[in-house]
């Protein structure tokens, strides 16, 4: 395995900027890695035919003396929920097979402008509905730690790509945990920014009031570097925050000194008992807290009495908004068209198309959402669920009056086996128990690796939550704990992952 792919984005960016490695070499190394392992992992739905050309252009810009940012020339994997002009964007659905967007998502445009090289589009649960990537219309992605297991979801492709060293950086989207939960099960880092901190323009909407785009990486610093590129105000997204943001990379560097843990008040939610979590998950969480305490942090028990209503509220709000957001897939302007026999009306064509083009989980949620918004039900369903958001926000306000950050396990269990829960959506939904409150309240959350579970040797993540707008705090705290843990392990957690089989496949781009 080439050393290039083992480098962090920060290291790779540094080497590219000094001329030690070219962007073309870095990109080629990752394309080779994709060719070697992605047949098994299936993190990518499409590999960018233009990646090397884009890399060459960055090299040329640098050669011409252009002053480029710290990660210019570094390859980037892009979740297929984000539209791109040079690669198809399917959101994991057959209904959008081959869809070519006439515009780039803002985060993609900003990445390109910063000299990042899009490597390809990563797999995901169809329209980001799922926690395992098993609901992709293009087949599941496999967890690099154990190919029989799920990589989390919906952004399993981005997390697996990063965990499998197919890309140093990836973009994800998080509606109820789709960045943080895959990070948890793959031993990687994922951040859901404050709602509005990163533009949603060009992110194919699942639930507009919950969706956020964010970084998926192997280190907290890399996440900060990517967040600095993609974040900030975008006038094309009305819900984008117009404020100035500090450098998150700087926050991560500051955190890595460890000083920030001294006197840091870390809230632990008393209503989340250990019993709700797999033993190894709970144990890893307690160990991380102990490490933080040893570095001077204070663990404070806090109450968040309404968190337990979060999942119920989420599964009323999400289907409602999704049912409306996904109405545009009707075969008229883009996407699949299925025309039934006979003399079908437009309505018949729309129904046949949506029936054939949407997978079962998507249909399920559209139907539930349609029902939840129907006349006479709105107040009890959507309206009541929106009230729970207020209550959860109040819980956060009360908690953050006492503590600087809140810590939870990122998810209740380690990666389960592919197929294990696919027929039990309700069990699957509980995966998002600890991640959902942040989406409902709009606050930022980060998941970083906290270790492996003793019983199965699979990775576990710890989640930190901070008040809205305080994303930098998460980078400081996350980097501090990361430094302490890596120090105690002697190497990053991913070094414990088993080696992947290397295929001798043809190396080429295109849809897979």
């Amino acid at each position, binding site marked *: 395995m080439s050393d290039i792919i083992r480098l962090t984005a920060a290291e790779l960016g540094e080497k590219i900027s000094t001329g030690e490695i070219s962007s073309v070499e870095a990109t080629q190394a990752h394309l080779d890695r994709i060719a070697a392992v992605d047949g098994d992992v299936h993190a990518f739905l499409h590999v960018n035919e233009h990646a090397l050309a884009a890399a060459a252009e960055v090299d040329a810009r640098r050669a011409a003396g252009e002053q480029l940012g710290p990660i210019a020339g570094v390859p980037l994997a892009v979740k297929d929920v*984000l539209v791109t002009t040079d690669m198809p964007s399917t*959101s994991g659905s057959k209904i959008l097979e081959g869809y070519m*967007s006439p*515009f780039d998502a803002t985060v993609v445009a900003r990445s390109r402008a910063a000299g990042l090289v899009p490597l390809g589009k990563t797999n995901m649960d169809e329209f980001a509905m799922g926690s395992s990537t098993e609901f992709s219309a293009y087949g599941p992605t496999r967890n690099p730690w154990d190919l029989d297991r799920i990589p989390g979801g919906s952004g399993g492709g981005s997390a697996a790509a990063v965990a499998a060293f197919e890309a140093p950086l990836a973009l994800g989207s998080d509606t109820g945990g789709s960045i943080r939960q895959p990070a948890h099960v793959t031993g990687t880092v994922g951040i859901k920014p404050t709602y509005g901190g990163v533009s949603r323009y060009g992110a194919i909407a699942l639930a507009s009031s919950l969706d956020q785009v964010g970084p998926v990486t192997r280190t907290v610093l890399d996440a900060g570097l990517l967040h600095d590129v993609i974040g900030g105000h975008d006038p*094309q997204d009305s819900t984008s925050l117009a404020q100035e943001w500090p450098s998150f990379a700087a926050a991560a560097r500051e955190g890595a000194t460890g000083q920030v843990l001294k006197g840091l008040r870390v809230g632990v939610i008393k209503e989340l008992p250990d019993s709700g979590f797999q033993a190894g998950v709970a144990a890893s969480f307690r160990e991380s807290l102990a490490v933080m305490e040893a570095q001077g942090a204070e663990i404070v028990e806090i109450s968040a009495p309404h968190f337990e209503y979060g999942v119920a509220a989420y599964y009323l709000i999400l289907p409602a*908004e999704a049912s409306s957001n996904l*109405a545009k897939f009707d075969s008229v302007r*883009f996407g699949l068209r299925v025309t039934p026999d006979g003399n079908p009306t437009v309505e018949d064509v729309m129904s046949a198309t949506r029936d054939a083009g949407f997978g079962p989980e998507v249909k399920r949620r559209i139907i539930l959402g349609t029902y939840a*918004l129907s006349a006479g039900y*709105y107040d009890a369903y959507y309206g009541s669920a929106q009230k729970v958001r207020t209550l959860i926000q109040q819980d956060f306000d009360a908690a953050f009056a006492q503590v600087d950050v809140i810590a939870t396990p990122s998810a209740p269990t380690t990666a389960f086996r592919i197929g294990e829960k696919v027929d039990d959506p309700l069990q699957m939904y509980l995966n998002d128990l600890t991640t959902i409150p942040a989406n409902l309240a709009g606050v930022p959350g980060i998941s970083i690796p906290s270790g492996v579970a003793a019983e199965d040797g699979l990775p576990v993540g710890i989640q930190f939550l901070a008040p809205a707008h305080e994303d930098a705090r998460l980078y400081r705290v996350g980097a501090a704990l990361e430094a302490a843990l890596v120090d105690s392990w002697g190497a990053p957690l991913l070094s414990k992952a088993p080696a992947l089989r290397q295929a001798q496949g043809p190396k080429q781009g295109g849809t897979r």
Partner: protein
Amino acid sequence: MATAKLMDFDKALEMFEPVLGFEVHVELNTRTKMFSDAPNPANDEFHGAEPNTLIAPVDLGLPGSLPVVNATAVRSSISLGLALGCSIAESSRFARKNYFYPDLGKNYQISQYDEPIAFEGSVEVELEDGTLVTIPVERAHMEEDAGKLTHMGGATGRIQGAEYSLVDYNRAGVPLVEIVTKPIFGAEHRAPEYAKAYIAAIRDIVRGLGISEARLERGNLRCDANVSLRPRGQEKLGTRTETKNVNSMRSVERAVRYEIQRQAAILADGGTIIQETRHWHEDTGTTSPGRPKSDADDYRYFPEPDLLPVQPSRELVEELRAALPEQPLARRRRLKADWGFTDLEFQDVRNGGLIDEVEATIAAGAAPAAARKWWTGEITRIANAQEREAPGLVSPADVAALQGLVDAGTLTDKLARQVLEGVIAGEGSPQQVVDSRGLAVVSDDGALIAAIDDAFAAQPDVLAKIKDGKVQAAGAVIGAVMKAMKGQADAARVRELILERAAQ
């Protein structure tokens, strides 16, 4: 389609009391659309663009696209709300109205539902005889227009029987303000007139504000007319029908009259009215059933999560209120006095929708009486003959220039009418038409004298008569001279020359 049975209008009014309601959609003439920066075809500058060339991603509902509210559209909506006497909401929000239709890019329309920008107002409306009535306004809300469907393959070009349809999304996202009245009582036999006067009032208001091109024939203003009847003495309102998209003031008037007669015939026969939308057919002057409207129409409204509340500051509202133009009614009173028109003269101008034209013609230099005469007279006559609207047929500047030529003696009234026809036919300005058609009065006395001499030579006895003091005999010579000059002579001058000649 079977023709509906109609009851005589007066008889219908004897038996039933009509209750009206109007929903008027006003297309704002902002430069861009409601939620995208694509050019707005309801602005004159972009009108008539090729299909699907005024499109931003959100107008097609492309994956990943997002709406952003047009600041000017919000200001226009607030101004309109204020001009309608409405309160402006301290907090207003957008909502999604969900339904599938191919002209709707996202399969939901961004509209307003429980929190409209403006509510509770009224419009003073002047009927043809000058009677004032107050129309209560329930609300005015902001929303976006849908695209345009063209039905192909059917015999009629209508949706029924079409083989396929083509969709142009240029209009998708055009900013609209929908003005909804409360139920209107007491219109009685003047119900059709109420309808026409109300639309005229809305048109005058939005034109005065300059927020819409306000051309009904282009759909800048579209009226849905609700009509219900209740038997005399009954408290409960009858079932209403909603006649959609009536696109001229005359049609609104006709459609309301038609619905009253149609519903009365059904009710008198013991039938029931179905709550439905009906389509107005300009050609036959009838309405036909459209989509039945029932409780199954479930739009699943919910607050638009991609947009934020509109909370206009009170300072902004007061700024816009202070900037409101003179109310159309007050303006009319002022103009009538300024121009010195009689009641009848002014009603003629107003009912013809010609106030702006007359005002502009006067501003361009014509005397009020002359401006009125041209617009209500010859121009209206030509418009009627050509089945067009008088405004827009000719520019006020040209009319003023034409009158200037008359005042200067270059044209007689009769010649001026010919010049007007040339101007309307697109032959250029009045002076250009005069030149190209050679219509100027022959003011060359030499030519006239020669013609007079010819006439005297042909009718020697006339000269004798005139010399005898029988001046009226000059008429015969004048006629001959005018004929020789092909009408292009000033008859008064010819008469003077004849008398001079006879005196020699």
